[in-house]
């Protein structure tokens, strides 16, 4: 399967009468976007704001981050099974508004995390401070149930991202990158001497606000299975996960999965990237056993020499991670794990809730308990009233001047377990 990603680089974002992309600037018609959101009768009010790199802006609580993309050639559309109909994506051509993102914010349930600062020390921790963001602030109708609210917000994000993505449909990309995965048999013939490598991609799937969808299916209802890496780039996997801001995979992370990209970068040179295995992280222990046995079995079946395993979330997924590792290593297949740590505020506690001697190659995305100071920002976007409760009430303390002392875990994407960032710990 072969996909061409065409990047249109976005260096600025502005409101305008007409939505369009011109000379690297994304112009957005605010009213059209609002109207799009309010198509959903679950929302009574919607607002749209801009947040650019370097601005003194704090956005919270962030639910999801989505990159605008559009299918230019080939079957299906972005976000199959969610917005577009179910059809295998991942081939042909897709255009991307690189450097832009849609951010959804919302107070869905009481506890809230998810801060993005566009400048200052907080900005260093999150990749989204480097993007030109269109922030959606949606007010639900009073009677809306939590899970309906989550779904409505998720869909608002997709719709706006696709609306923006569509602006790129007829543009000529500034840069094109080609990704191709041959069939197993072809791959073997093409790269006979190279080690064969797969990626075991763990998806959070524990119930309300902890969900990930694959072609529209809740991942917790699926057995471990395979997917072409380019399918992921076309939005086959999306995030419905509102918990654990620092180490959840937003939809942006899925679209730009760095492990997939970095494996492709070595594909045909130092390794043969065979494919992606997606597996879930359920609550029921028997599910954990079943899914991890299934991962090990598929890995063995593919005949690979090594795998990278990435985790998502906090606590019980450590168990899935170690189960995957143990069972795959037991088959003589080498593993590298990517995780983050909860080593306590002083860094001396046990970092993971599980451990095994076979996990001898681990990449750390940092200690999420480390305490950081976030200076005040001139502007707050999102749910400001809630913001007081969030920062003061849960993970840190909101000071009078608007500065926040909190654990790193409040920042969206700070310790992402796909290895999206450079942050680590020793």
């Amino acid at each position, binding site marked *: 399967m072969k996909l061409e990603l065409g990047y249109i680089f976005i260096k600025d974002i502005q409101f305008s009468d007409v939505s369009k992309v011109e000379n690297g600037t994304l112009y957005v018609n605010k009213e059209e976007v609002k109207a799009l959101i309010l198509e959903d009768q679950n929302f009574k009010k919607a607002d749209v704001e801009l947040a650019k790199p370097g601005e003194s802006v704090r956005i919270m609580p962030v639910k999801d981050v989505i990159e605008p993309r559009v299918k230019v050639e080939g079957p299906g559309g972005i976000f199959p099974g969610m917005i577009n109909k179910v059809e295998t994506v991942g081939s042909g051509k897709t255009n991307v508004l690189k450097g832009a993102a849609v951010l959804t914010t919302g107070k869905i349930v009481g506890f809230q995390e998810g801060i993005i600062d566009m400048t200052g020390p907080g900005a260093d921790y999150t990749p989204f401070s480097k993007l030109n963001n269109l922030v959606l602030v949606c007010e639900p109708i009073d009677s809306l149930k939590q899970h309906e609210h989550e779904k409505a917000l998720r869909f608002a994000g997709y719709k706006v991202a696709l609306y923006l993505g569509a602006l790129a449909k007829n543009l000529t990309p500034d840069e094109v990158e080609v990704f191709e995965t041959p069939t197993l048999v072809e791959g073997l013939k093409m790269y006979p001497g190279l*080690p064969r490598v797969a990626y075991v991609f763990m998806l959070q799937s524990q119930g309300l606000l902890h969900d990930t969808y694959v072609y529209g299916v809740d991942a917790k209802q699926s057995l471990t299975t395979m997917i072409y890496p380019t399918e992921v780039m076309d939005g086959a996997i999306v995030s419905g996960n509102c918990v654990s801001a620092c180490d959840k995979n937003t939809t942006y992370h899925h679209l730009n999965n760095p492990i997939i990209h970095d494996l492709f970068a*070595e594909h045909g040179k130092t390794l043969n990237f065979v494919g992606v295995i997606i597996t879930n992280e359920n609550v029921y222990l028997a599910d954990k056993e079943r899914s991890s046995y299934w991962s090990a079995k598929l890995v063995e079946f593919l005949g690979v020499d090594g795998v990278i395993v990435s985790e998502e979330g906090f606590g019980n997924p450590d168990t899935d991670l170690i189960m995957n590792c143990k069972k795959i290593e037991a088959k003589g297949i080498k593993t590298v794990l990517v995780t983050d740590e909860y080593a306590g505020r002083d860094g001396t506690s046990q970092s993971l809730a599980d451990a095994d001697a076979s996990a001898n*190659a681990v990449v*750390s995305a940092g200690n999420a308990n480390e305490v950081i100071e976030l200076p005040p920002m001139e502007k707050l976007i999102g749910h400001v009233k809630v913001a007081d409760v969030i920062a003061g009430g849960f993970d840190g303390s909101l000071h009078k001047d608007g500065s926040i002392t909190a654990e790193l875990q409040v920042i969206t994407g700070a310790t992402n377990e796909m290895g999206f960032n450079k942050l*680590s710990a020793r």
Partner: protein
Amino acid sequence: MMKIVHYINQFFANVGGEEMAHIPAEVREGIVGPGLAFQQAFKDEAEIVATIVCGDSYFNENMDEAKKTIIEMVKKYNPDLFIAGPAFNAGRYGVACGTIAKAVKDELNIPVLTGMYVENPGADMFKNNIYIVSTKNSAAGMRDAVKKMAPLALKLGKGEKIGASSEEGYIPNGVRVNFYEKERGSKRAVKMLLAKLSGKEFQTEFPMPDFDRVTANPAVKDITKAKIALVTSGGIVPKGNPDHIESSSASKYGKYDIDGVTDLTEETYETAHGGYDPVYANQDPDRVLPVDIMREFEKEGKIGSLHRYFYTTVGNGTAVKSAKAFAEKYAKELKADGVDAVILTST
């Protein structure tokens, strides 16, 4: 300017080798031996005001006295920082550097720094107490050691935030510290996997807890003559928990005299352990620490004798953070007391 006192052994002070290892501690004004390289690296930011020279044998054989004397010497100069070594792979020098640096830190409350090769026994003993820069295994690595130690020394002396072990060059001390790598995590994962696949050396960024093994000691020749000690991780303590042993991840252990005790009862003993339902152990502590039957065995001649003291800790069976440090200490005591075998009971 920052004031520093430096500790070195007889060899690095050019006093002599093994034949001079017996010399007691002496203090010299200013710089001696490797201090020169440090002083050059510090430039105008710090000054080595005194150097303490002590023979390795002397220090290790007269540890308490040596510690006391040296601390007095250091105190006199009221320094901002204390540096010991580097000791490279010299075992006794490493232990001396670690011991004295820790003592200075604990008693004078000033920052300390030492350096040694990672396999120096002193490294394992003290890496969680003090910053130990990882050096090469011989004095030929002096330049490299000074290059790593000097900047860290200045940071410590100024009270600045200390970065992660991999940035600063100290031996990992069990404290996880965040820092920015040069490459993103996914790239590092790909590289690590390639190294692992090709059998090349690679370093995990998060070492799993220690799963090392110790070989079994030879069996007891004649159990009917053996002195046997009871040790438990089930938290049995005299009623009222006189030493206030905490109910979980205890930082201390209890040592209790059971001379003449033939049975542990609800009235006299209890459990301090928070890791299990204490009802049954409190009803009859022999269910965890079987003093009653051991006394019976002693009387019947099935064992030589029951050791006069039992040792107790609390600890989750699976907890990764182990009670290693104090277990080492009481294991030595047991050995010194001539105990031939131990029965360790866990809940």
